[in-house]
């Protein structure tokens, strides 16, 4: 892959009276003695100043996953920086940074080599420079703590004394990475970059942006997906003190609801522009409006699920190994069960917002987004702009979870700012957020299995029916098997296996939620396996281990192999640390599930108590994780705990329903989130190895759901086949 970050464009920064002036020049021509440079930018990611400070660019959007800390840690490690003399600056969106997005647990996976290379190149230049200064061979020099040291004598020189000479060194294309054993920064628990500003309340999230002459806005949206505006009474909103303007926003005037894949346009509605967010909210509430919802599906949840059930018998086969029908005929026992998973909303803590200042054909944007490229694409399409007419700033983000992959909330802000020629901050209310999300699709799963006389699984069929993310909003197109993939577990582990997908078209906006399809599919797969274990009175972990077979590489699809060694290892370890074999008092039970996700292996055990009156208490969660090298153990632990809590919370209460084409739930009172008093003790154990680091944002979530449901079965004998658990009788 072409790498723009190590291009031989050398930026040299020299300070002017008022601060740093960026002079973008080739190294050779910018090296001029008469001009005393104070800042040396070795790449867009690394700058060293003559005062000894290293400034690292954090290139990816920070949504709470800790990437603003983890990626600079990798740079700092490779170059030998002193973490206490490192400053971190958030990058704006720029294609030169590559892979500048947050999603799919990919940031560390995709940037591991990019960051190591950028850091190692600078280390190379500094060591070359030190070798000249110190008259010592490069292989006797190492960099550490912002200095280059002579390994033998211990003599050293600080980075700042090496800059002029280092700036003359050609950065090599091939560069050796530091051996893992020498790591000093990677692997050390490191507090988040912004932690001080966060606790002082001085971090600027997107919603906190303030610009001179800025207007505040919100949009009263048609609650019905795809609905339009019939009429509205402007005066009704303008009666609110502080409301300045009332403007109709029809996305059809701006290219329709979807500008392109992953670039949705705003929801139709009436924008209220005011002098405070509150006045805009109140104006929106007071606005008298009539919607036009003719010709829409106006879906209800019950009807939608009925269509899913129907679709179970009309499917496309996504994967077919052997012959499940033959296996069924041969089997000593066949078993089947149907599982149901609800729609979910994302509810990041910071509601959707965007600030835009559109002037002189230039669109400057401050947007909390996981996907800045999609926002740029959308703006280009909306206003026929070129990339150089758009500037996207990436403030810290109050949570993403997949919601901010879709930038619909930026488009209306841009339209309004263009109209007024002033900066506009557009904020969605929490109600807007919950009612106009890109929901995790609900689904129905028909699981069938064939067992031989020893109880071994010889046939496996998983049929999933739902509305696909790829064809949401009722748009036609190939469902592309998006909700169950040919490589989904347990593909590769059963000789006769069929994975099928039944596709239903729906008007509901659907999107990626943390862990995407696995957030739904892990539940039926791992609860069904638990059912099989109990049916045969075998310990569920022992049964699962037998199901997986011996430690080996399991060919799954193409050249994708599943490392059963690493998988078995986390499973055996979780069995140990959870005291799996120690009996529990009556009314308590343990449940287990293990998955691979984003390259990481995770095994989880949930312990619950079901009281005689049916009350459920989650007592404890044990998790063992193998994600390869752990860049920042503090951030990694937080991701695992956060993912597990999110899974438990979704399993307990998460449910979005629809009535007449609109979402029923509207705020945290009817879409509850887990609170401190319900949070169990979560113990996380990481397997230590030197394998390349893999994703952690998503993988901890899916197993938590079946592990909880399996624990409930163990505690009280109630098999959960439908989520959420809240509202179901457990006694």
């Amino acid at each position, binding site marked *: 892959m072409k790498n723009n970050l190590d291009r031989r464009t050398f930026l040299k920064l020299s300070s002017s009276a008022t601060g740093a002036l960026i002079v973008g020049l080739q190294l050779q021509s910018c090296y001029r003695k008469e001009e005393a440079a104070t800042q040396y930018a070795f790449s867009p990611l690394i700058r060293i100043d003559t005062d000894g400070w290293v400034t690292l660019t954090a290139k990816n959007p920070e949504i*709470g996953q800790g990437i603003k800390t983890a990626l600079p840690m990798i740079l700092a490690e490779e170059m030998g920086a002193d973490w206490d003399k490192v400053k971190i600056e958030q990058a704006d969106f720029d294609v030169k940074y590559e892979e500048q997005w947050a999603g799919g647990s990919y940031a560390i996976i995709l940037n591991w080599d990019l960051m190591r290379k950028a850091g190692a190149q600078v280390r190379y230049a500094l060591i070359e420079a030190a070798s000249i200064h110190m008259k010592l061979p490069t292989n006797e020099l190492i960099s550490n703590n912002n200095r280059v040291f002579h390994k033998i004598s211990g003599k050293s020189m600080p980075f700042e004394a090496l800059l002029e000479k280092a700036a003359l060194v050609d950065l090599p294309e091939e560069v050796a990475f530091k051996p893992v054993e020498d790591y000093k920064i990677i692997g050390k628990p490191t507090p988040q970059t912004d932690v001080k500003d*966060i606790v002082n309340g001085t971090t600027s999230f997107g*919603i906190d942006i303030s610009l001179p002459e800025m207007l505040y806005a919100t949009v009263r949206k048609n609650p019905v997906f795809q609905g339009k505006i019939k009429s509205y009474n402007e005066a009704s909103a303008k009666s609110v003190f502080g409301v300045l303007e009332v403007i109709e926003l029809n996305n059809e005037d701006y290219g329709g609801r979807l500008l392109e894949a992953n670039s949705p346009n705003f929801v139709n509605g009436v924008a209220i522009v005011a002098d405070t*967010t509150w006045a805009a909210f109140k104006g929106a509430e007071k606005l008298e409006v009539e919607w036009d919802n003719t010709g829409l599906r106006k879906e209800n949840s019950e009807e939608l699920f009925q269509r899913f059930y129907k679709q179970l018998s009309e499917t496309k086969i996504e994967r077919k190994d052997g012959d499940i029908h033959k296996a069924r005929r041969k089997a000593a026992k066949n078993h089947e069960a149907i599982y149901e998973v609800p729609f979910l909303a994302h509810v990041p*803590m910071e509601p959707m917002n965007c600030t835009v200042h559109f002037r002189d054909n230039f669109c400057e944007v401050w947007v909390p987004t996981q996907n800045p490229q999609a926002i740029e694409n959308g703006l280009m399409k909306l206003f026929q702009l070129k990339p150089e007419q758009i500037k996207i700033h990436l403030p810290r983000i*109050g949570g993403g979870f997949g919601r901010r992959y879709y930038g619909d909330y930026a488009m209306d802000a841009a339209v309004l700012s263009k109209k007024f020629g002033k900066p506009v901050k557009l904020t969605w209310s929490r109600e807007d957020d919950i009612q106009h999300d890109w929901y995790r699709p609900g689904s129905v799963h028909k699981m069938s299995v064939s067992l031989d006389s020893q109880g071994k699984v010889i046939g496996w069929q998983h049929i999933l029916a739902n509305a696909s993310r790829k064809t949401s909003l009722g748009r036609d197109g190939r469902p592309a098997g998006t909700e169950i993939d040919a490589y989904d577990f347990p593909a590769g582990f059963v000789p006769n296996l069929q994975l099928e997908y039944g596709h239903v078209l729906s008007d509901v906006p659907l999107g990626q939620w943390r862990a995407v399809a696995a957030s739904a599919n892990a539940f039926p797969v791992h609860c069904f396996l638990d059912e099989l274990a109990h049916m045969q009175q075998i310990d569920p972990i022992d049964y699962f281990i037998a199901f997986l077979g011996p430690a080996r590489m399991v060919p799954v699809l193409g050249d994708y192999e599943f490392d059963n060694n690493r998988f078995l290892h986390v499973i055996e370890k979780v069995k140990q640390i959870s005291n799996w074999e120690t009996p529990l008092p009556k009314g308590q039970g343990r449940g287990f599930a293990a998955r691979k996700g984003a390259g990481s292996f995770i095994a989880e055990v949930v312990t619950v108590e079901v009281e005689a009156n049916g009350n459920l208490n989650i007592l404890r969660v044990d998790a063992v994780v193998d994600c390869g090298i752990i860049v920042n153990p503090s951030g990694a632990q*937080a991701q695992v705990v956060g993912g597990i809590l999110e899974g438990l919370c979704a399993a307990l209460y998460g449910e979005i329903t629809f009535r007449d084409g609109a979402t029923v739930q509207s*705020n945290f009172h009817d879409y509850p*989130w887990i609170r401190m008093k319900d*949070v169990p003790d979560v113990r996380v154990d990481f397997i230590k190895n030197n394998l390349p680091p893999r994703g952690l944002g998503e993988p901890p979530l899916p197993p938590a759901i079946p592990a909880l449901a399996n624990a409930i079965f163990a505690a009280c004998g109630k098999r959960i086949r439908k989520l959420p658990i809240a509202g179901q009788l457990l006694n």
Partner: protein
Amino acid sequence: MPSYKLTINSESISVEASPDIPLLWVIRDMLGLTGTKYGCGKGVCGACTVHFNGSPIKSCTMAIENADGGAITTIEGLVKEKEIMIKEAWIQLDVPQCGYCQAGQIMNAAALLVNNPNPSNVEIDNTMSSNLCRCGTYSRIKQAISLAAKNIKQ
């Protein structure tokens, strides 16, 4: 437009505002103190927690007309020695994930520790359950409160 007097982070000010505007939006949009956050606007998430005459309140549910003459402390004004020790515990344990809920969490925790310097786990749970953390930082919040309580006592 009626005028209201407030003491905010020890500074006396007066604001002209519509009587029903919640304190949250006066603080954020009129006074420019954006550390206090909007999360639900209904008093159910705690992101907007500030101290009003020393007690934690959800600033999204208190109209300015009911706050007239009151003394308000926001996260930016949480600067007393003991309060700083709470923030330090937060930093030491690397509590925040996205960070958005944390100002509200700290405001609530600070009020708890003033009234109850030695809270039990159950007391922490009960008080802090009015603050939602979407990222799930609860166990570190709990540890940070215990750590701060211990440090303050010494």
